């Protein structure tokens, strides 16, 4: 019997690492920026990603997403509402995604070719520990943290935060009710990962999304090195890439954000709209474009809700749209948002081109007396709140005058019935 020590010096996850290195090479060759999103369960990865997909698509970028969960394809369904190709990976109990799963799901993903993508997002399983050990071939690892989780999360999970290239704070709209200590959170993240880029965002309000999209554009456009150390990113407009482009194009400078979105096609003025559908599509198109211009594009379900109708032409899948809408949206907020957009559209149409305003008016008329949700929304957007406020004041003054006049007339007609009470001094 002889005892021998055999030096192995071999990475335990060597297989995964080698596969990941191969994937990374493929991604680089294809010109697609791959990002791996990691966080605890419930941080809001899906909502954040959904918004990101929508905004990138609105800017002409070609995007896709792989989403990992133990079970269900709920997240994939939510993300698919953005219109981007989405594929669910069910790990059936495994607490992380690995390179093999990515490789396998890319191989037989119908309709998705790496060479025709600008961005591929991988939403990892909600877990702040295990995914940090598994390289997926991504170029950017993004650690997310919501304001509801506590500012010390990075200190509790240093292995994950230290391995991240960027950090995203989500649910900033809840920062105040949660008494979120922003400074402390930023300090904690930087204490664990010095020099990291941090984005403070809200998928609900759109806060901070611009900075995030600019970062993506910078990283994806192949412009310059990674932003390490104290370097501050110079905000760059997002590159415009059209589906028809033969190959991914370098970042193009856009002088005016307004020009990103083409003017909607004008309806043939004078001849009017030949169908309710045509009119509806024209109006929805204008509202949708206005939302993009404002920097907060409508989500697919928000846009589709504009087609809702009790009677008259609507989308075939409207029942499903309504169901999704009721699940994730607040109708009051939605109506306020749409009202604002409608007012802007009308203002723009009025100020700019007569033909456009005419077309708008014609389209509204074309919807006629049928029951369309859009008509209610347009009616609700009637006037600006200030005007409405002024009119309300006028009504109040008139009402008071009328009451006073009525009392005076009544007193004149019935003088006997007026008895003045005199207190008895005896």
């Amino acid at each position, binding site marked *: 019997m002889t005892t*021998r020590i055999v030096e192995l*010096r071999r990475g335990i996850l060597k297989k995964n690492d080698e596969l990941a290195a191969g994937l990374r090479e493929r991604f680089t060759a294809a010109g697609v920026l791959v990002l791996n999103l990691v966080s605890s369960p419930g941080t809001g990865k899906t909502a954040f990603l959904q918004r990101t997909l929508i905004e990138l698509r609105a800017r002409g970028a070609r995007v896709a997403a792989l989403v990992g969960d133990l079970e269900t394809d709920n997240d994939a369904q939510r993300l698919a509402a953005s219109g981007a190709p989405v594929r669910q990976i069910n790990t059936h109990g495994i607490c992380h995604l690995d390179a093999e799963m990515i490789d396998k799901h890319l191989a037989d993903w119908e309709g998705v070719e790496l060479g025709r993508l600008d961005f591929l997002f991988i939403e990892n399983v909600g877990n702040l520990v295990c995914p940090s050990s598994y390289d997926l071939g991504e170029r950017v690892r993004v650690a997310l943290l919501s304001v509801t989780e506590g500012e010390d999360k990075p200190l509790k999970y*240093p292995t994950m935060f230290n391995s991240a290239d960027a950090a995203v704070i989500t649910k900033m709209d809840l920062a105040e009710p949660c008494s979120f200590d922003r400074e402390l959170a930023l300090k904690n993240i930087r*204490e664990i990962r010095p020099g990291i880029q941090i984005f403070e965002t809200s998928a609900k309000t759109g806060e901070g999304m611009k900075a995030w999209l600019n970062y993506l554009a910078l990283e994806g456009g192949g412009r310059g090195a990674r932003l390490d150390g104290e370097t501050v990113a110079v905000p760059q407009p997002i590159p415009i890439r059209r589906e028809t482009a033969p190959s991914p194009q370098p970042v193009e400078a856009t002088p005016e954000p307004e020009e990103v979105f083409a003017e909607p096609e004008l309806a043939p003025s004078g001849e009017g709209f030949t169908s309710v559908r045509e009119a509806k599509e024209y109006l929805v198109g204008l509202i949708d474009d206005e939302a993009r211009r404002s920097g907060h594009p409508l989500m697919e379900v928000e846009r589709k809700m504009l087609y809702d109708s009790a009677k008259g032409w609507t989308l075939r899948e409207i029942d499903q749209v309504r169901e999704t809408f009721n699940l994730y949206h607040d109708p009051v907020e939605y109506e306020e948002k749409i009202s604002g957009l409608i007012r802007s559209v009308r203002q723009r149409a009025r100020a700019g081109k007569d033909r456009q305003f005419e077309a708008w008016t014609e389209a509204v008329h074309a919807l006629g007396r049928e029951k369309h949700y859009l008509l209610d929304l347009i009616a609700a957007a009637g006037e600006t709140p200030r005007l409405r406020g002024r009119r309300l004041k006028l009504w109040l003054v008139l009402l008071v005058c009328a009451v006073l006049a009525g009392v005076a007339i009544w007193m004149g007609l019935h003088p006997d019935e007026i008895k003045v009470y005199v207190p008895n001094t005896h």
Partner: protein
Amino acid sequence: MHELSIVSSIVESVTESLAAYPGAQVKEVRLRVGALASVIEDSLLFCYEIATEDTPLAGSKLVVKILPVVMHCEPCRADVELPGLQSFRCPQCGELVADMRQGRELEIDSIEIEENP
């Protein structure tokens, strides 16, 4: 949480290397694990016994060597060991440090085997 998959990879890897030593028996498997590798020693040891059953590694001992995080501090021009994971600052000068030199290792260092001549 993922220690069982890690241990399975160890079993696979060691079994492969044993091909060069037919009939050899594994006595010990030595790992080098960085403090930032997201692997817990106790969980590894716990999973090891279960995962090695009915394999050439059955009955062997797992020895885990935890490596501290070492960062390069530019102002000090030195590699410095971090005392903990709560702050990535140089313990000498207090500057934030981002350049890691050690801490994420997750590897099999060596195995001790017994051979019948």
